[in-house]
């Protein structure tokens, strides 16, 4: 009976999770007309794609660092408030708005006649083009990912026993010492989870790059989308996909692969 109830689940996982990934791995060995080949891999290593992978990695790295730099002090600040749940809810609330709508807002804000250029003109730094630049891509991504970094970091910081901090203060540690020697080491796990939930999606974003940077920034995600939906070269798209999955695994190994924790705490 118990087994019978689980049958749909196993069929589902087999058909819609395992099979598609295996098919994708298989397709990475097929060329445009369906012959078995290693050409996709040869092309991937031939230069252009390696360059794109490195730059995609670099952007994801920058986005993750900036997201962490914004979120960590924010988590500390939320911990200090008297009504933590409410403030957390206020920060999390915008994540329920579809990220496309938020990205779309930035088209207006960063546009030639948008508010950022307006302020810049008023300060006499003159009209510059922020939309379609890589800085804009990073700002928008940090904006979108910040709450996802905040949650695990806040959970880790909030779990720290207040007595520990008081003890450190009593024993003569300064505020900075408490921060660097007590709080930070005790919140490493949260930071790792945060890095995991920000880094992997930033490698694969394609809608933000398309809308905000035109086609200037190309991430692994943009390349896959391009190969699959525009060029219809599924072989090459799958090859890039295989590399994206490999990178994901590398990131997960480095950050401890504790994705279970993350969902439990939401």
């Amino acid at each position, binding site marked *: 009976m118990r087994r019978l109830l689980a049958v749909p689940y196993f069929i589902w996982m087999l058909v819609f999770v395992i099979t598609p990934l295996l098919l994708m791995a298989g397709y990475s060995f097929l060329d445009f007309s369906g012959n078995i080949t290693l050409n996709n891999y040869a092309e991937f290593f031939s230069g252009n794609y390696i360059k794109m992978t490195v730059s995609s990695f670099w952007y994801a790295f920058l986005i993750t660092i900036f997201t962490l730099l914004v979120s960590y002090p924010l988590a500390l600040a939320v911990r200090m408030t008297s009504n933590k749940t409410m403030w957390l809810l206020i920060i999390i609330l915008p994540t329920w708005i579809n990220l496309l709508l938020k990205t779309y807002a930035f088209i207006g804000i960063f546009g030639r006649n948008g508010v950022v250029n307006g302020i810049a003109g008023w300060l006499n730094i003159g009209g510059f083009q922020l939309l379609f630049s890589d800085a804009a891509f990073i700002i928008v991504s940090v904006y979108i990912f910040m709450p996802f970094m905040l949650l695990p970091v806040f959970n880790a910081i909030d779990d720290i026993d207040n007595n520990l901090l008081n003890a450190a203060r009593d024993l003569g540690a300064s505020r900075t010492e408490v921060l660097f020697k007590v709080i930070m080491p005790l919140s490493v796990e949260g930071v790792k989870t945060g890095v995991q939930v920000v880094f992997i999606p930033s490698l694969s974003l394609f809608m933000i790059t398309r809308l905000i940077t035109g086609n200037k920034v190309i991430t692994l995600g943009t390349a896959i989308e391009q190969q699959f939906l525009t060029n219809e070269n*599924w072989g090459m798209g799958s090859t890039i996909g295989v590399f994206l999955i490999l990178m994901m695994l590398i990131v997960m190994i480095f950050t401890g692969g504790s994705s279970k924790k993350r969902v439990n705490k939401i």
Partner: protein
Amino acid sequence: MKKLSHLYLLIVIVLLYFPILYLMFYSFNSAGNMSSFDSFTLEHYISVFTNQRLIVIIINTLAVALISSAAAVLIGLGGALFMYNVKNSTRRILLSINNIMIVSPDVIIGASLLILFTLAGISLGSVSVVLAHIAFSVPIVVLMILPKLYNMNHSLVDAARDLGADYKTIILKVIIPYINPGIIAGFFMALTYSLDDFAVTFFVTGSGFSVLSVEIYAMARRGISLEINAVSTLIFLFVFALVFIYYLLSTHKQLKKEKVL
């Protein structure tokens, strides 16, 4: 120090809400752009409500979310019940397979499902979108239900069995009532993921069928259209109202609990 941290908190919150308020503000702009406010108008809202295509798309979006979440709950519940009763080592393997879908980037899920649907001869449209949404919701449901199962005192199940209940009765009368909060949480989590998804749907939808996020992407690629602003204002107000009610209910419950104690 405390003042500084409060100030930082406020600045971040202002920056977080600024783009959303910006969208809402210009949804009332009669000039039709997002840079110079001309005069107040409701024409963009009227055009949303008279745009039949858009209304069909909103209904599609809600239907896909509700159908896929309900199906995911049924499938995931069976999986969670199974995992609850297996050896630790087996469960660890099953859970890591379960987690593949959760950590996979959307592009990978979308592209690999596109290959599957094409090879299986499933035409791209409403069916493929619902199947894809169920696919990424099932693992989430399992993860939301499992902790509840572990919180349950196993003697409850033993007692029921000793008293002569068969497996069906145990599940329906003992386990499901106990883990109900987890099932509801799983359903809403699946609903959120489904409503929020863009990338997966973008890959597996055909030309005849569209959901809101895909439609917004198509509109935004063509440039600024204040209809999007009007839609997002409506969505934001809706979400805000829901969360506010949820917050009131949960604090109310907590207050009640404290009073009892």
